């Protein structure tokens, strides 16, 4: 597969996941503010912006409202990681590689884009709640089509790797922010990853810190847990470059992810809460490292050719 296409596929996976996760997080956030009046709205909003890695708005932090945060994180095209920007980028990538993905998948990306901009600005077309719902549904359609219309070849693998890495990254971000302050509301946190119901079915009790963190980070069956996503990404990388010799993987991205997955797999569960402070930033860092390793391994593998004039009128080639 062309490197350019592989890279686009990887990013389609990431962008769609980013849009979906952001929609889930915002949805829960807005809902939470409506339900409770315990915390100051401005403080909660400022923390959410920080989690999402978005620069603070040009307003006094005390004046921050949910409305402003939603505008910034959901609808703002000038924020490159907003939901709308992510979906625009996913579609732009899809357009460039539309011959490499199924037509249904391309149509799904395109329809999502068209619907957002039906009436010009999406914030005019949608209420916040209906927009989050729309984004979740579209992401589900897109994921479903990725899984049901594409062969399990390299194209599919690059998309799954992108999706999985983004999922771990978003999870680590939100958990890090939530656990840095006072005791977080674990129900809200679980809901942000639609993990609350799955948690209840698993443990049959109201969530408390250690158990909720275990579920989100270590659960072997829940598809949005960090462990599950890391293993999915690792499996795909293993299939992209099967080991042939007697040593372990030579692929740096796979090595990074494998170590990360092992850390989670063999962690002392009772120590989890105490190690969280170091573990979560490490998750983010390692995901970024893996992403870079994958890029240099698969997307920029070939040599750069430079054409030089050796003597006047004679072309030469140097391979670097």
């Amino acid at each position, binding site marked *: *597969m*062309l*490197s*350019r*296409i*592989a890279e686009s596929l990887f990013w389609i996976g990431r962008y769609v996941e980013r849009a979906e996760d952001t929609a889930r997080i915002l949805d829960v956030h807005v809902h939470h503010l409506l339900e409770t009046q315990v915390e100051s709205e401005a403080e909660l909003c400022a923390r959410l912006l920080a989690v999402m890695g978005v620069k603070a708005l040009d307003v006094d932090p005390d004046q921050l409202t949910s409305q402003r945060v939603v505008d910034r994180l959901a609808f703002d095209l000038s924020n490159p990681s907003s939901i709308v920007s992510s979906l625009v980028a996913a579609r*732009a990538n899809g*357009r*460039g590689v*539309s*011959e*490499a993905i199924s*037509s249904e998948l*391309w*149509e799904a990306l*395109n*329809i999502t884009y*068209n619907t957002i901009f039906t009436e010009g600005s999406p914030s005019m077309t949608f209420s916040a709640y209906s927009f989050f719902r729309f984004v979740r549904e579209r992401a589900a359609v897109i994921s479903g089509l990725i899984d049901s219309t594409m062969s399990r070849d*390299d194209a599919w693998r*690059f998309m799954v790797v992108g999706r999985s890495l983004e999922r771990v990254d978003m999870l680590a971000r939100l958990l890090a922010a939530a656990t840095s302050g006072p005791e977080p509301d674990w129900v809200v946190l679980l809901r942000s990853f639609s993990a609350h119901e799955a948690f*209840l079915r698993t443990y*049959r*009790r109201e969530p408390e810190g250690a158990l909720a963190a275990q579920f989100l980070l270590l659960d072997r069956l829940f598809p949005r847990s960090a462990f599950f996503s890391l293993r999915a990404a690792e499996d795909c990388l293993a299939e*992209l470059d099967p080991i042939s010799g007697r040593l372990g993987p030579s692929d740096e991205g796979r090595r990074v992810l494998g170590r990360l997955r092992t850390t989670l797999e063999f962690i002392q569960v009772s120590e989890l809460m105490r190690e969280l402070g170091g573990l979560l930033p490490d998750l983010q860092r390692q995901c970024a490292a893996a992403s870079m390793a994958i890029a240099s391994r*698969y*997307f920029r*593998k*070939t*040599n750069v*050719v430079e*054409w030089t004039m050796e003597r006047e009128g004679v*072309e030469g*080639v140097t*391979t670097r």
Partner: protein
Amino acid sequence: MWVMGDLLDDYSPARAYGRSAWDEMFEERGSPRPGARALCDILQSLSGVELEARASARDRMFRDRGITFQLSGEERPFPLDLIPRLIVEEEWQELERGIVQRVKALEALLADVYGAGRIFADGVIPRRLVTSSEHFHRAAWGIEPPNGVRVHVAGIDVVRGGDGNFYVLEDNLRCPSGVSYVIENRRMMARIFPELFASHRVTAVDGYPAKLLEALRAAAPLGVADPTVVVMTPGVYNSAFFEHSFLARQMGVELVEGRDLLCHSGRVYMRTSDGEREVHVIYRRVDDEYLDPLQFRSDSLVGCPGLINVARSGNVTLANAVGNGVADDKLTYTYLPDAIRYYLGEEPILRNVSTHRLEDPEQLAHALERIDQLVFKPVSGSGGYGIVIGPDATDEQLASLKQDLTLNPRGWIAQELVALSTAPTWVDNRIAPRHLDLRPFAINDGNDIWVLPGGLTRVALPEGGLVVNSSQGGGSKDTWVIATQGRRRAKAAIRRPEQSAASNDRPSGGSQQWSSGSPFGAFDPEPGPSWEDPDRLRQQERQQQQSGHGQSPLGC
């Protein structure tokens, strides 16, 4: 006499510049041409509201599928007219023969221009005509195509004059585009107008990508048994990007940009996630001038440096070949009937529109006299840009044209005005005649020249307009090559599908048990476990009344 209903009541064929144009559907007001009656009947049974609803369904589907056209920076759904254009089979076969003949002659001409130059030596075409063409590339001289094919894909633009004959307007041998719209138009029509297809036998068009792939594989460098074929695009911002992507997808090959390719050691490779992979055949949709910055424009960012040298060493085949523009030059066009006689020893089947070479002082003087009656085209122009239609031009335009012609007669040709044929077209909530042309596509695989049945019909949407290019806001029509006799399906069967299904022969007496519900004789879908057991439902309802003080649901 055929009875007229609503929508076609006011329809009467148009006139253009004082001459009556040939109408594709009606011989005269109220009497459809042979083969067009069924279509007329169906159109008459529809209301304007219904047509408008289908038009908006069409736009939505085109938009959803990303089949859009960039017009002045705006993305618009591809403009497909709701009413197809019909060509009866007998007429098509004649046209097809003419196109095959023309492509053969064009191939021979190109081989000669970039080879021995017999036609110059024999004085049929002046050599300077070719060497003065801006599409003549010395760089292409000596590149010998492995199977002798330079015109892998040709688009021959034809129009129908007031006399009902087809005339060739121009040849496109570089990167003729539009074939994806032929296929997509057909798919779209089948979705929004299924009833039309039931009453006509329309020749299919979806075999094109397979034919193209076959021809590209056949063009592979010698000794390559299983060639890697790619489509090369300038990129997503190109107005024809949809087509590039469409063809790559339909052929199952990679779509590459210039930056995905690299040349070294006399070969072309593409950069893949698995390292470098050699490429053998490039169906390139990048113009000659941008293909290789080392040979042509050094500022090209969409080409690949070194490509031409690899082509010259025979390790990659470029399709279409470099330098083909010399044969579709508008001045070369005027010599083509002679070229057909010279190379094939046959009379041309398709006529040219009568054209004046302005290099000849006599013809120039003559053309200047009749400047307000002729059509003037820049020789190297394409896409409908720069054309001056004499009768429509203002005095200032004519004055500036006159100056251009005197200064640079090699740069222009003058053509007699053709009253392009018309067909009923849905515009502004009514059916009105609009002028159209036709671009059939031909594929040459070295053994055989195959012509896609029909082609792209382009429509000039402004009333009376004659310029049909989609880059000038033109529309298109699905083009049907139809059999007129005997093979049309009975209409009764279409109106009542359940009857025809019932009369199907079903296997009988076998051991399989055919379900009664399905007309196809398949098994019913396997049912899942029943959850709507009425008894249980009733019990559940009763239980609910007690649930207020029952056990916790988590405890069970």
